[in-house]
């Protein structure tokens, strides 16, 4: 462990698992820790929204979509929920580790993937609405 600055020593209540996961360095500015926590929670809420969407599509859209399409939409939303929540945890840990050693923060890989996925799904739904209504 690096020699910490005075007043910024690693907290004494850290156990071995968190010490190995969080890596070397010292506790960052508490405001940054809290900001990272809130960003993680915002991603988790995004994942929960996808999850709720997936469950709702499976439960409520029996009259709208054919069974195959309904299953595909529900499944893709649920997979997306899993992906977003897993990456939220990994990103939280990466940011925390970077802040502890004062390195630049990692780029959010999920943002371009989510935007692209959202655009594709929207395009698919437009096609479905145009041709499904005919």
């Amino acid at each position, binding site marked *: 462990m690096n020699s910490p600055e005075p*007043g*910024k*020593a690693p*907290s004494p*209540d*850290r156990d071995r*698992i*968190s010490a190995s*996961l*969080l890596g070397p360095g010292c*506790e960052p*500015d*508490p*405001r940054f*820790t*809290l*900001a990272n*926590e*809130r960003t*993680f*929670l*915002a991603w*988790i*809420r995004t*994942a*929960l*929204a996808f*999850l*709720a969407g*997936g*469950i*709702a599509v*499976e*439960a*409520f859209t029996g009259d709208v979509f054919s069974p195959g399409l309904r*299953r595909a939409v*529900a*499944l893709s939303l*649920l*997979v997306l*929920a*899993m992906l977003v*929540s*897993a990456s*939220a*945890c990994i990103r*939280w*840990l990466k940011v*925390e580790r970077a802040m502890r050693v004062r390195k630049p923060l990692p780029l959010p890989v999920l943002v371009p993937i989510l935007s692209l996925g959202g655009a594709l799904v929207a395009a698919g739904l437009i096609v479905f609405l145009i041709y499904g209504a005919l």
Partner: protein
Amino acid sequence: MSRRAQAPVTLGHDDPGLQPERTLLAWRRTLMTLLVVCTIFLRWIPHFGLIALLPIVLALMAGILIQIGLNARYRKSAKGLKQERIPAPLREVVVLGATVIVLSGVGIYAVVFG
């Protein structure tokens, strides 16, 4: 207890950015969303049977666990801001993240095999 007797824990802090409150409210919002997801899962019971109960029970347990820890977390944040040091909330992050991952997994399982 002895530490608390020496220096009484106060909820006050001098952070003009109100970071502990914002973080606490972010947790509350997230827990409320989790509760909403639970209620939508209820709709699955007629179709998928008891497997739909599993995520509800799981999410409620995780929600209660986190809710119990929240007050302590808020106190830690307010205190940590004064001391310029807050321990990383590793346990809470892992519990919440794992809950959402398992919920999605149960959902995927039910849609594919249900």
